[in-house]
């Protein structure tokens, strides 16, 4: 009987030790000491916001005229200095609206400008934050996808 009791006690001790080690390992690996919480709820609003408040003249010299240039944004340069737009005193977002409404350029061109502005210039890390930009046509009420980070730009 003594031997049996001894075996039981050893068995319980081993089991308890394994349990404690397991809980300690779980606690150590799962507790997030240096976890940073990223807030991105406003990001979609901010993407549209910065495009609507940034004027073409903020990023381009003499848009639509002689010596037109967008020094830091080559793809934007192709659009603004391409001679197709009518409005040069508006925002980047209004420029997109004009392109879509008048069918001036294919969708890849707008996609390229958005990608250049936000992804290539490291404003939004596409590996961590996916985003898409939709344009809703006023007449058809159909959303038109201008950009989706899940697809190659």
């Amino acid at each position, binding site marked *: 009987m003594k031997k049996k009791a001894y075996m039981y006690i050893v068995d319980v001790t081993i089991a308890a030790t394994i349990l404690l080690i397991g809980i300690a390992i779980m606690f150590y690996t799962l507790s997030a000491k240096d976890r*940073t*919480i990223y807030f991105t709820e406003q990001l979609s609003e901010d993407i549209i916001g910065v495009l609507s408040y940034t004027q073409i003249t903020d990023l381009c010299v003499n848009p639509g005229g002689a010596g037109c240039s967008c020094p830091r944004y080559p793809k934007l340069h192709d659009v603004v200095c391409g001679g197709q737009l009518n409005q040069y005193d508006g925002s980047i977002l209004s420029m997109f609206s004009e392109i879509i409404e008048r069918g001036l350029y294919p969708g890849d061109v707008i996609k390229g400008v958005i990608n250049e502005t936000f992804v290539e210039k490291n404003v939004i890390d596409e590996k961590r934050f996916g985003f898409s930009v939709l344009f809703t046509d006023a007449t058809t009420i159909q959303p038109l996808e201008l950009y989706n980070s899940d697809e190659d730009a």
Partner: protein
Amino acid sequence: MKKKSQLMSFDVSLSVIIFIIIIVVLFSVFFLITRDDSSKEFDFELGYVFSNLENNLKYDAPNQFFKDYRIDSSRLSSFYAISDIDDYVVGAIGNAHGIGLDVEAFDTCLFLIDNDNRILQVNGMDTVGQLKTGSCDAVIAVGGNPCDDYKNSFSMFKPVLLDEGNVNDNRIIQMNLVLCKK
């Protein structure tokens, strides 16, 4: 034989009960550790941080470097030189109002990331803001985590136009706020 079988059932029942208790404790510990309710708890306040910063800067015109997604480079420079970002985030300026974060609860660091993915240096500084251990700039300059001695850290960023007053230099960059919960 009766006594033996009774002992065995008692033994088995006891084992099963202990087993269930241990499983419940394990799962409770697991869910307790992985529970992430801190972001929900602060959602309401944190969603207003950038707009609160912008609103409060209105009441301190010389330092109003940020308005309508546009950063005025020259005012940013003077802001970095003289200001504590906590004053603006909390809403302690003159007639400032709006929802701010309690200065007793949070420390704040503000910095800008340029198109080359490096922190934009303004007036020789990388970051503006004060921590428990000193300035944000001193910590980040040596590659440290500003929220190392804090309970939690929250990071948010906003695309903004950096207006250098010159089309050749104007560009859209990333403005960052890191909030360290005390």
